[in-house]
């Protein structure tokens, strides 16, 4: 008999050794102190240890999960040449369509629309082929390439940012999932991912042009009856625009550039609503000496106004574009009050130079003796082509302002004092050195070929994560203890064997998680608890059967054989259905849910091994040993 059992014990022993070996890195990592960790990290051993240990999910460790979607319509629109109204309108209607039914496939909608509107694609995309079908196929490839490039660039940025164990992966055709476990400052990481990093240099329109244009915008908008609604009717409970009218001081168009200083005092006394009717645009703005201020509270209204089609048409006719400064700053007004304001710039609509020419970007503090002394700045150096263009541009525009624009926000707009050769330049206007460092990272990694939208974002703060771990572990341990004690009391000797198998089951599930490099999430812990339940159930089914057999007067050995044989089909059938549920969950689930399904799946498989095979082997050995009298069950 002993001989027959030996291979079974050998198998169990091997599995046990494998389980402990797989779990070893996790246990070691858990018991290390901070100092020991630092020491290991210096030796470069920490990483290999971590890679073999069970990973904790974002919900346990804290961290961020971000799903980005590459803006394919904008990508395709950007690579078009000779863009005109017709093409723009195609993209506008596609965007509308996607907004209404999000499942719309861009390329299907695109090819339908160009057929309907009889747009000749070869006009805009002659580099991509001659027939519309060819072009669309080529554009599809282009879009796929773009996602890969986005993936690569984001990877690059994250690497330079320095986060332990980042996960960046493609999902489907236009999504990228980024998981940053344990990231402390999620805001910085977010900004780093979201930024397109499109750096552009534009000339600022001169004051007279700007001044004239403001008057024109006022005139256009005055005719537009829907405008009054911007401050009055647009007052739905959730989304109202606050122009904070009654006590606001306002400026006239002429005052904006100090042309009619004498009247300024009277003008500013005018009640906003009256002025608004007269000058719907400039009444929302403030004069900041040489620039136009947009009070933070009016920013939304102004954005709405400058996006109106009639204003857009007018902007296009003079080849200009409005852009905001990247952040609002405090300004002291005439009456001594302080207001947060953005600066509004009227720029050329063609960039003189783009970030493609940037060779190196470094964050620094501004050198002494300059205007940016002590301020965080980013130093740029350009390649030879960029440096040449930069020199020509600055040389022929001395005295004018050049705006340095990152992701459509003006960072600074210095006056060109002299021709800059050599291709060096600097950007200022950062809140702190961290922001400057991050901008330098994105500029080095390069611009994304298309903008990305954050479509899903989940951040778990470190304190919630720690709390979850504590509570999760606690409830597992309490639940486990109660179950173990109950089974021991209820089934005595047999119960101790079942308890042994149960602990085994947990060890093996964790060992599998470690060797699969799976991630343990909070729902995963719940799955572990359910596994405990399933494993106990198998043993309960077996033990109740053995008791029945014993009641029929069978010997212990026969009862065990009979009990196991009859319980087997029940256990397999019952577990199979749960296994089906686990597989379906795994297929359907994302992140945490998948973690739950993984644990449940392996938990059930292993519980069949431990609750049937392992306990049976022990039972047999127990019954076969010398001096065995009675089975205590």
């Amino acid at each position: 008999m002993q001989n027959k059992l030996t291979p079974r014990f050998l198998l169990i022993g091997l599995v046990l050794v494998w389980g402990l070996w797989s779990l070893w890195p996790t246990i070691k990592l858990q018991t290390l102190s901070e100092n020991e960790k630092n020491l290991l990290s210096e030796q470069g051993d920490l990483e290999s240890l971590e890679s073999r240990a069970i990973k904790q999910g974002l919900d346990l460790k804290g961290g961020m999960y971000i799903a980005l979607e590459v803006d394919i319509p904008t990508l395709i629109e950007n690579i078009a040449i000779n863009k005109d109204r017709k093409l723009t309108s195609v993209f506008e209607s596609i965007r509308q369509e996607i907004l209404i039914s999000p499942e719309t496939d861009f390329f299907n909608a695109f090819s339908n629309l160009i057929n309907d509107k009889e747009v000749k694609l070869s006009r805009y995309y002659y580099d991509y082929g001659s027939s519309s079908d060819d072009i669309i196929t080529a554009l599809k490839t282009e879009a796929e390439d773009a996602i890969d490039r986005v993936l690569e660039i984001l990877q690059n940025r994250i690497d330079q940012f320095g986060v332990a164990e980042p996960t960046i992966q493609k999902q489907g055709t236009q999504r990228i999932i980024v998981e940053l476990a344990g990231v402390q400052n999620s805001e910085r990481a977010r900004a780093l991912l979201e930024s397109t990093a499109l750096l552009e240099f534009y000339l600022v329109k001169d004051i007279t042009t700007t001044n004239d244009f403001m008057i024109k915008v006022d005139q256009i908008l005055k005719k537009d009856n829907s405008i009054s609604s911007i401050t009055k009717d647009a007052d739905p409970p959730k989304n109202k625009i606050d122009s904070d009218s009654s006590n606001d001081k306002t400026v006239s168009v002429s005052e904006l550039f100090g042309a009619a200083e004498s009247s300024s005092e009277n003008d500013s006394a005018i009640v906003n609503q009256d002025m608004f009717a007269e000058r719907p645009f400039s009444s929302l703005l403030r004069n900041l000496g040489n620039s136009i201020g947009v009070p933070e509270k009016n920013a939304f209204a102004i954005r709405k106004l400058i996006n109106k089609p009639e204003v857009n048409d007018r902007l296009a006719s003079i080849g200009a574009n409005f852009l905001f400064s990247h952040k609002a700053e405090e300004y002291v007004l005439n009456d001594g009050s302080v207001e947060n304001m953005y600066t509004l710039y009227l720029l050329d609509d063609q960039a003189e130079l783009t970030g493609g020419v940037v060779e190196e970007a470094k964050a620094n503090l501004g050198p002494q003796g300059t205007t940016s002394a002590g301020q965080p700045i980013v130093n740029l150096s350009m390649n030879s082509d960029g440096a040449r263009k930069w020199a020509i541009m600055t040389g022929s525009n001395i005295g004018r302002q050049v705006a340095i624009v990152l992701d459509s926000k003006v960072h600074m707009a210095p006056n060109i004092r002299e021709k800059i050769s050599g291709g060096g330049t600097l950007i200022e206007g950062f809140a702190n050195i961290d922001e400057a460092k991050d901008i330098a990272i994105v500029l080095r990694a390069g611009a994304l070929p298309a903008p990305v939208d954050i479509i899903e974002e989940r951040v778990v703060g470190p304190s919630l994560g720690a709390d979850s771990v504590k509570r999760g572990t606690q409830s597992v341990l309490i639940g486990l203890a109660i179950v173990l004690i109950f089974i021991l009391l209820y089934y005595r000797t047999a119960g101790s064997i079942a308890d042994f198998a149960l602990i085994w089951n947990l060890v093996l599930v964790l060992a599998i998680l470690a060797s699969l490099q799976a991630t343990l999430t909070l729902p995963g812990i719940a799955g572990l608890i359910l596994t405990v339940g399933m494993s106990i159930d198998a043993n309960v089914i077996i033990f109740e059967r053995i008791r029945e057999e014993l009641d029929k007067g069978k010997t212990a050995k026969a009862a065990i054989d009979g009990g196991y044989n009859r319980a087997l089909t029940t256990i397999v059938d019952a577990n199979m259905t749960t296994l089906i549920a686990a597989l379906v969950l795994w297929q359907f689930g994302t992140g945490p849910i998948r973690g739950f399904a993984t644990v449940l799946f392996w938990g059930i498989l292993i519980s069949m091994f431990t609750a049937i095979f392992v306990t049976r082997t022990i039972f047999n050995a127990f019954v076969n040993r010398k001096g065995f009298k009675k089975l205590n069950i």
Partner: protein
Amino acid sequence: MRILKNSNFDFMSKKPLALGLSGFIVFAGLISLLANGGPKLSIDFKGGTFVAVQYTEEINVENVRSKMSNINIDGQNFDFSKEEVKHFGNKNAVSIRVPHIENSPSNFAQKIAVHLFKSFPNKAPDDMNEFVLSKGKISPKIGSELSGKAVMAIFSALALILLYISIRFEFKFALGAIAALTHDILITLGMFSLLSYEISLPIIAAFLTIVGYSLNDTIVIFDRIRENLKSSKNQAYSLVVNSSINESLSRTVITSLTTFVVVFILWVFGGEVIHNFAFAMIIGVIVGTYSSIYIASTLVIYLHEKSIN
């Protein structure tokens, strides 16, 4: 120690009472679901923004709510005083959920968190990172995809299980099991609706676990019925079913009890994140055990009697 040794309860005689009770609870749940226009879906499925923050001392939900009535973010004014504001786990923490707003400002969640931070400067911790427990945004696009997937998951699980039981047992057993599952899910959904709890992503996982658990229980009884049918061909069908339920009763009680204890502890100690998941499981364990006896087995008897006549 042994409980329920050689029990011999006449389960099937209580059938009218049990079916009446089931019918009543399912009906109440359905009425509540209808009145509320379907289950209360969380922002996981509808899209929206959520923020949970932790103050250093106790905070009153109504005070927070009043501070939410007029928030200016990037020049846009918002009134969130009607949205969901509640304590999150303990009295120091609050969570706020806001449905999706078209063209909402970028980094909306963080800006709401900053507003909450500034609204109670005396109670806010020094570090913003300690203040924010969790936050996030889900676009309706993701939400509608998830709803589709969740429905797919539930139905494909049911179909696969139906198939498995039909192969291993008989088709009428499969129908019995599916009826019991539908009953369990309906009651859990109804309870969530009555208590106005939200259906979030983890709750879908809980539902599928309930499906697995309830089936597990049902199949143990079915297995006994299958076995007893072979050995006692002359007995009345319903008697065989009743004695099968009795024979597996002690197992049913022990397993349900241990599972109940485990999920109950999870419910009490598991923390805020897992609280509702555990609650769904508690209902599932109770209803799942009950439905194996009164829904699944009853239907199998009914189908059998119908097929004979």
